[in-house]
């Protein structure tokens, strides 16, 4: 059997609480990261991602506390990202029990950060998160990709999508791999929250250019979308939030579907 494709629920954490999953009909879902981590782990998640959106001075203490709590509760791998800008930020998270750290804006602004982190902790625990938006303006030096809607290129955006960079995501991915990234978390800003499916062209184009694993993110609305991104999209892992939080498609249902479709999935 080949390596299994990974199902990765994502939790956005604000001040130590999971947000975005507040379900008015099911207040338990608005819960704490440790409870949800435990639930997803029990349901068969292959890995978890926590994105810390807290921006405040008390951040470090809060982060340390919940990362330790999650590490004690589950025994599957988990990644923590959000505001990691230095080796000492990463050390805090890793020594609290996280297996990987994810860097995004800080790595785009200072690519050497990836190398520094990889040298200290090993590249296997450095996830390079790339937020991407399609750009239809034909521009010199960009890798143009044919799509149903015409030729486009993939632009890196930072600060949660608030700032465009003019950087080609495919070129950036190839560079980041050379700098020492161990894995990519590729999020389509166009698809995020739409439930229209992942940006297949995006994940496939990155996957074909690098030799490290890719976690696809943004747009999952039903199990078929995960199938598409694993097959056509050539992703190694699929991240999703709302389809799991709201229990529309619990993890076992998604895994059963993928298995029936012939995708290698962990029992």
């Amino acid at each position, binding site marked *: 059997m080949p*390596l*299994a494709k*990974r199902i990765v629920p994502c939790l956005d954490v604000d001040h130590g609480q999971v947000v975005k999953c507040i379900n008015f009909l099911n207040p338990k879902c608005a819960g704490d990261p440790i409870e949800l981590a435990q639930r997803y782990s029990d349901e068969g998640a292959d890995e978890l991602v926590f994105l810390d959106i807290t921006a405040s001075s008390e951040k470090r203490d809060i982060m340390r506390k919940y990362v330790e709590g999650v590490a004690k509760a589950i025994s599957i791998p988990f990644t923590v990202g959000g505001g990691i800008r230095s080796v000492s930020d990463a050390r805090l998270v890793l020594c609290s029990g996280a297996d990987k750290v994810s860097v995004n804006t800080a790595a785009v602004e200072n690519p050497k950060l990836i190398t520094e982190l990889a040298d200290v902790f*090993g590249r296997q*625990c450095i996830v390079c998160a790339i937020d991407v938006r399609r750009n239809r303006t034909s521009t010199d030096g960009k890798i143009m990709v044919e799509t149903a809607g015409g030729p486009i290129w993939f632009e890196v955006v930072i600060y949660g999508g608030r700032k465009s960079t003019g950087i080609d995501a495919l070129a950036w991915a190839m560079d980041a791999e050379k700098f020492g990234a161990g894995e990519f978390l590729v999020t389509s800003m166009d698809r995020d929250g739409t439930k229209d499916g992942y940006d297949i062209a995006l994940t496939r184009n990155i996957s074909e250019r690098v030799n490290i*694993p890719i976690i696809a993110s943004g747009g999952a609305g039903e199990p078929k979308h995960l199938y598409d991104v694993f097959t056509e999209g050539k992703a*190694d892992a699929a991240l999703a939030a709302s389809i799991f939080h709201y229990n529309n498609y619990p993890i076992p249902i998604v895994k059963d579907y993928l298995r029936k479709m012939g995708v290698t999935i962990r029992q």
Partner: protein
Amino acid sequence: MANTVIFDYGAGNLLSLKIALEKTGLTTSIGTTAEDLAQADAITLPGVGSFTVALKRLSMVKETLQTKVTEGTPLLGICLGLQLFFESSQEGPGDGLAFFKGTVKQLPGMVKVPHMGWNTLNIVESNELLDGIAEGTYVYFVHSLYPSPQYSNIVVTETDYGTTFPSAVAQKNIYGTQFHPEKSGEVGLRILKNFAKTIIR
């Protein structure tokens, strides 16, 4: 209480392993010196860091470690910890612990490296470490190198990824896993429990 020492090469996350070992009922401590190892009822070499750096840290305790293992103290090496059991590694210079003859090689370039995620165990030899573990069970891997023993009699399980490599090895009281039992959910805890059972209390 049996004291299981987790050797610290100074490379980072030992907490996952500590927590998982404690879930099996073991008492653990983090050790860095020969004295720490001398007091151990069991020793684990965790899977974070690099071959050369880890060997540097182990050089101060090498004799004690060898004596303890010869005396029968159970030893578990995980990922890099297992790779240290061999004579040399393509990862970097340095003489390994040489408990086993053989080397550590880079995974072939035609597959994505690191080998990251859940892959299966093909059991080739029964061993107490795998008590209750079924053929084809998924465990979690994160590695770029793999052990290549000179003699196959130490191989307990194999896994396919670009090549077929030994994913668990054992000989008497020396056990090694290329995967991370501390990250392999319930299955991993079962394997650690099996290791705990080999400790004479």
